[in-house]
């Protein structure tokens, strides 16, 4: 069951994990909006340790102003649920 629904404001986790992750550094700590619940896939951070951990994956839209402090474009990223927290 997906914890977030389209339109929800979410924050990408700021912590720097010890191992592999597919949460790009530039998004960490920033707030975006859920656009779509994409699918359920195993968290890569767990998969790389040989553990299958399926969870919802969301497309999240970040504004350039939020990510970089300037710019008018948008960046859309796919985020495993573990990468997100409520705002």
């Amino acid at each position: 069951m997906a914890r977030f629904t389209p339109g929800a404001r979410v924050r990408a986790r700021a912590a720097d994990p010890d191992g592999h992750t597919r949460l790009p550094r530039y998004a960490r700590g920033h707030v975006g909006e859920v656009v779509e619940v994409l699918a359920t896939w195993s968290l890569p951070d767990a998969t790389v340790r040989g553990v299958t951990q399926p969870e919802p994956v969301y497309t999240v839209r970040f504004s350039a102003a939020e990510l970089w402090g300037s710019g008018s474009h948008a960046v859309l990223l796919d985020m495993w649920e573990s990468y997100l927290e409520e705002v």
Partner: protein
Amino acid sequence: MSGGHAEVPVAARVRQLEERLISAGLITDAELDEILTQVYDSASPVNGARMVVRAWTDPAYHDRLLADANAAAAELGFGPGTRGYLLKAVENTPGVHNVIVCTLCSCYPTSLLGPSPSWYKSFAYRSRVVREPREVLAEFGLELPEDTEIRVWDANSETRYLVLPQRPPGTDDKDEEALVSLVTRNGLIGTATC
């Protein structure tokens, strides 16, 4: 495969992995060769172009492409090459321009766009296009109007993106083959209009 990669350290790891898979009986050498040949021999931006042109000329296909691009690819015979990831088509409109990148590595729908260009894998493109896409696109010769919204899609998960460009004006009389020849690899990535 391309000759220049045989000496890089990862090539030895890939060979070891292949040997382990083969010795475990999970796959044979011949099967591996067949899959690689199939993917790389048929991988071409003409495949993506055919999907785009079908979407331009068939409104029902256009809607199916945006709703389920994997199924839309399979309809045109591109199913085998697009297995294993979620394919999404993102549509350019008069007010919105899309461009794709993989900031973490170089994810890319190879079977539909052909082998990726070296700049797509470059650190410069990957780091700059998420930060200053308008400037990067201008360097490709694509000057967008100030009020066009740019959407940068970072393929950081199991999703692969394909841009659906706008049909160029003045092409109403062109047949399917002529239209296919208008669509470029850069148009499918979003670093060109078409």
